[in-house]
């Protein structure tokens, strides 16, 4: 036993063990190669499918998430928008991926002044995007503000499936003409009373941000991705109140 221990501690033993290890590795490689050759006749094909998740935004049936521009065709080219008139504006989401998903959308309505800066003193309520939540869209009142509305779709969307539209038309409230500043001027025998509209030259904006999340472990996924507590029973989503 002592002799064996002495031999194992010697440099000779180290070299011998190294050669043995190398030999085993090479032998293993050859074995695999042989196994591949012998197993060649038994061909098996395995397909690995990587499912992906992808959401799209539709405006009057056309995708708008590629160029990210809404309201392009709201009026005929060169035509001004007329307060009080209804313009078709049906917004919906579509599942463009290969997996089922739950979806939500955050809508933002706001005004920009003539210089392109956001003007929070002008009322988003006058940008009348008429919502049609129906049975399948849930409005998250807790997360909504005068400027933002958050809607969740109750049902999971299969690949290629669309949601019901969550809006149907846009109508600027004619009462925005009531916000006026009046000036009187006398010139060359004329008396002109001029009313300047506070909303004149301002730009109203509609912004939609859509999110999709996997249906597997939906409750945990939605809480993690969107921070919203939900119940997803039998493929139907419902909102839970925050703790």
């Amino acid at each position, binding site marked *: 036993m002592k002799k064996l221990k002495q031999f194992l501690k010697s440099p000779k033993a180290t070299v011998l063990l190294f050669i043995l290890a190398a030999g085993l590795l090479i032998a293993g490689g050859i074995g695999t190669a042989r196994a591949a050759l012998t197993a060649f006749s038994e061909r098996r094909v395995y397909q690995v499918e990587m499912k992906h998740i992808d959401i799209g935004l539709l405006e009057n049936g056309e995708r708008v*998430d590629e160029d990210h521009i809404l309201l392009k065709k709201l009026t005929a080219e060169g035509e001004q928008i007329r307060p009080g008139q209804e313009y078709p504006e049906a917004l919906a989401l579509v599942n463009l991926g290969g997996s089922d998903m739950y979806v939500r959308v955050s809508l933002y309505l706001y005004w920009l002044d003539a210089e392109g800066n956001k003007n929070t003193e002008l009322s988003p309520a006058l940008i009348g995007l008429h919502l049609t939540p129906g049975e399948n869209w849930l409005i998250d009142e807790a997360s909504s503000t005068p400027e933002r509305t958050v809607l969740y779709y109750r049902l999971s969307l299969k690949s290629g499936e669309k949601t019901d539209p969550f809006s149907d038309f846009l109508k600027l409230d004619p009462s925005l003409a009531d916000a006026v500043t009046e000036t009187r001027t006398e010139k060359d025998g004329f008396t002109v009373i001029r009313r300047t509209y506070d909303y004149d030259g301002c730009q109203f904006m509609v912004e939609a941000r859509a999110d999709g999340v996997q249906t597997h472990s939906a409750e945990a996924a939605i809480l993690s991705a969107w921070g919203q507590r939900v119940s997803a029973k039998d493929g139907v989503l419902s909102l839970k109140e925050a703790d």
Partner: protein
Amino acid sequence: MKKKASLILCGLALLLVLMTRLGGASAYFTSNAWAKGGRTLIMGSVNEILEEFSAWTKHVTVKAEDDSEPVFVRARVFADESVELLILSEDGSWTDGGDGWWYCGTVLSAGESTAELLVKVVKLPVGAVAGTDFNVIVVYECSRALFKADGTPYADWTAQPEKGGTQ
């Protein structure tokens, strides 16, 4: 030496814990899309009154300037009772509203003008001689065109309109 080894092991352990958490956070498949758009609202009505006087007749037209929103126009004529006037619209686009105002029936878009409203002086003031002054005043009002849901324009004259006048 032992201290150093402990520190390295601690660092490794922390890294492993962090990596586990990162794995958990990115375990869910998500996707998003966005779009936004807007339109500029033109609401100011900028108009001018154009007038010619010839053969005892005022030829009145109102023009909406190029940056004006669509408007409706009405006009009213004032003169001394002793002056007899005849107000006419040859193409019928102006109609007598029966309330003292003449209404142009067509909505005036940017750059457009109304047809002429003719104000004829039929009878001069009693005792008028050459050099006698008398006034025929034309006042016009513009009201921004309002639109029904189907796009049909209408005027709301109860709202305070933009005013102007000539004499």
